[in-house]
């Protein structure tokens, strides 16, 4: 694909990672467009990002109110048509509330907000975001959330595992998935999952916060950069009828 990738960054009232994503998009030579939640017009993007924050103050449940914003209709359509969607932190919570991804994110088991660098084991390295990584490797990304405890009933969890849709797990420095390395009590240490087609990724960590060495790491950049290669292999959004 010759032109710069166009990425729609959705902004709900209370979202706060949109500027950080726009900054990193700049580093990647992407064209980032901030889309306010009341608009249904994503502007013919190549990918959609739902950033972190506290949409609607996280009142009631994280993402509970955001999922009804007009923009979500377009996000659902874009995802259904196979477009690349990334929901980080609050974005992940919104995707689950909207039913685009299964399960729900509950209050951390220790009841505290947790902001720290977190090692993660890459379980599967495919799709628009993770193809640049390799399965089994350990990466480091910042986490910053009070409600990241992934929950789904056993059936759903087993299906996710069977389909290889659990793509990131909380791990320790050497990549072992152990209870002590689980920062929020997520079932099966789940940090990130994808939808059936693999085009929608939801994860609690913040890839945009790990895109420059001077702020502590670049594994996040490796994730976002995956999009470039993936897009090259894709028919243009227009051709996919979006």
């Amino acid at each position, binding site marked *: 694909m010759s032109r710069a990738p166009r990425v729609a960054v959705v902004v709900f*009232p*209370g979202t706060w990672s949109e500027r950080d994503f726009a900054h990193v998009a700049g580093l990647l030579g992407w064209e980032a467009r901030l889309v306010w939640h009341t608009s249904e017009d994503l502007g013919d993007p190549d990918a959609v990002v739902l950033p972190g924050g506290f949409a609607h103050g*996280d009142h009631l449940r994280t993402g509970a109110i955001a999922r009804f914003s007009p923009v979500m209709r377009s996000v659902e359509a874009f995802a259904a048509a196979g477009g690349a969607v990334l929901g980080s932190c609050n974005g992940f919570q919104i995707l689950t509330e909207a039913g685009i991804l299964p399960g729900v994110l509950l209050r951390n088991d220790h009841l505290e907000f947790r902001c720290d660098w977190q090692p993660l084991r890459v379980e599967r390295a495919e799709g628009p975001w993770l193809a640049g990584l390799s399965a089994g490797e350990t990466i480091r990304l910042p986490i*910053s959330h009070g409600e990241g405890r992934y929950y789904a009933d056993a059936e759903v969890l087993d299906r996710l595992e069977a389909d290889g849709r659990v793509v990131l797990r909380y791990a320790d420095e050497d990549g072992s998935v152990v209870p002590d390395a689980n920062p929020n009590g997520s079932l099966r240490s789940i940090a990130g999952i994808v939808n059936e087609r693999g085009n929608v990724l939801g994860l609690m960590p913040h890839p945009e916060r790990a*895109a420059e060495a001077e*702020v502590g790491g670049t594994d996040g950049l490796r994730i976002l950069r995956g999009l470039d290669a993936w897009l090259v292999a894709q028919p243009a959004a227009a051709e996919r009828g979006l």
Partner: protein
Amino acid sequence: MARLTIAAPVERHGLTEDEYRLVVAALGREPNAVELGMFGAMWSEHCAYKHSRTLLGSLPTEGARVLVGPGENAGAIDIGDGLAAVFKVESHNHPSAVEPYQGAATGVGGIIRDIFTMGARPIALLNSLRFGPLHPDDDVTGRTDAAAAARNRYLLGGVVAGIAGYGNCIGIPDVGGEIGFDATYSGNPLVNVMCVGIARHDEITLARAAGPGNALLLVGASTGTDGIQGASFASASLDDDREERRPAVQVGNPFLEKLLMEACLELSGSTAVVAMQDLGAAGLTCALAEVSARGGCGAQVDLDLVPRREPGLTPYEVLLSESQERMLLVVRAGREAEVQAVFERYELHAVTIGRVIADPVVRATASAAIVCEVPGRALADDAPRYTPAAEPPSDMAARRAESLDELAAQPASAATLLELLGSPNMRSRKPIWRRYDHMNGINTLVGPGAGDAALLRIKGTDRAIALSLDGPGRLGALDPRLAGAAAVVEGALNVACSGATPIAITNCLNFGSPQNPAGYWQLTEAVAGMGEACRRLGIPIVSGNVSLYNETPDGPILPTPVIGTVGLLEDRSRAVPMAWCPADEIWLLGAPAWDAAALAASELAWRRGRFGGEPSLDLEAAARLVTLLGQLGAAGLVSGAHDVSVGGIAVALARMAIASSMGADLSMPTSASRFPSAGLFGERGGRVLVAVAPASSGAVVTAAAAAQVTAERLGAAGGRELQVGLGDARLSLGIDRLRAAWSVPF
């Protein structure tokens, strides 16, 4: 809920009979109940600085970089490239004592509003906290029983959760601060929050009304009975009937403030906006009085137009409500719609409640009748200023005369180092700061726990700013003047240790009642000491806050002047970490402190029940050290630095060893062997440990000599053990033991 009756007596409004007479004089008539309430709030210590304004006048506030000094919502300094750093520290001590979560949360919300009111985008928060002992056995004075300790733990938990709850939700990283424990803070915790914002010079918005006919827009939350009397409440000491006298608790709404912030920042460049003022203590009354007094004009508002959260509010309540997340904007006549459109986009309503008038009065109407008409200046500027009797505490001289020789002569043992490392005032703060989002905005180069100061990059430039918020520990108990000076010096050194140059400070003065001669003496002394140090270091004070009446029936808190320091690092690739590298030489820079008095007011002395001695600090030498550190950093001569503060050299070395996951082999000079405990655990300020690559040590020695700073080579980094030789004694501890001792939860 505290609701004032119209027939409320003068006392109820916090005014004395004399002050009441001044009000009558200012009005040329008796005030009505509404006006009386307005004066009561505006002339409270909290709003009027009655006991401190005269003192604050003595502080240096000028400097080449100063764009906006004290008097506005926050100070602003030039950081190059046409950018300004806008910052201020604010206290929310009394509200936090009553409802720790909301008290701390609304404190954070308030200081953030001060920053974006100036047109600056907040990029960092810091917080300085003080609590009573969390466990009875942490208190050698034996004053803390199980119930008091439980209350202190409840307050700590609530305050930290409130700071995290507000800051994390609005999305401003909390990048640093400090936390300390002492019995005098039992039941009267200190919650000081600093916010730093960045603005282009031309975006800086002041809070001065102008242009009769211009519109007064009220924006944000609707008005309820929150915190009525808050201003006068913050100025009364916390005696036991506070449960009854408590006003309605204010509840913060960071989600709403985020929208308010984004809308105000979008408007800060606009010519449609003449002025912005946030509503804080004394609510609408204070905002109207200050914008009109600053602008030399007046304001007329119709209270019926103020959006209410609940029915039945009286004019009195509407004028004095401290409902959070509200802003007052002065908008050019005819351009209201354009401003309102911006707020609508952020799902907020901006209501025109009145107009700027030429007549310099604050006039409010309700149901077409005038409910108050008061000169803005009388409310904002004409409160009386007091200089009450000042006298050192009677036992002061005796305590300072106390000798610490015996304690100082005790051998410095590994056990003592481990004890100090694990003590509440020194142990790792990670259990606290990991609850704050400290990375939002991806500017954090050095975050909490990683250095003496936080370091944030300024995107689009090569620069970074260094931020520190620090108080003086126990020095105030023995020498409040020194406490003021030492806090300024520690802030400057924290910033200098990261490679930056301190360029301006803000301060928060937390003291007891000024009506008590000892209390007022402590305040005067601390302010004098701060001023001396700032002049000596050439650092202006651009903003600040005063919190008095911090006392309980058990007595006043330790005098606690908290200093927020902003430093500038021109080339952030020159940033200096806290860690050392293999083979680095470890040097001690600064005036030697091997004498017994170096233990005065130290953690070790306090833990051993030695509350006396004569603390000191060589300001001249400290100033030279700050300059030297700037030179060494710019020349890239030091690979690591950390200032000597609580716990002394031994704890500072342990902190660097832990940060580097590497030991060091060191020996103290023979001059230290007479008073080993003072040498290793003494806390006299003005000293820094630096790690220097062997190749650079020659240059460091030369630079130190030229700067007339004493430099002492202690040894070299390496291995898994921290070894310190002192005379014939040798203290040796593995990194893992140090880290384990330091990493105990609260």
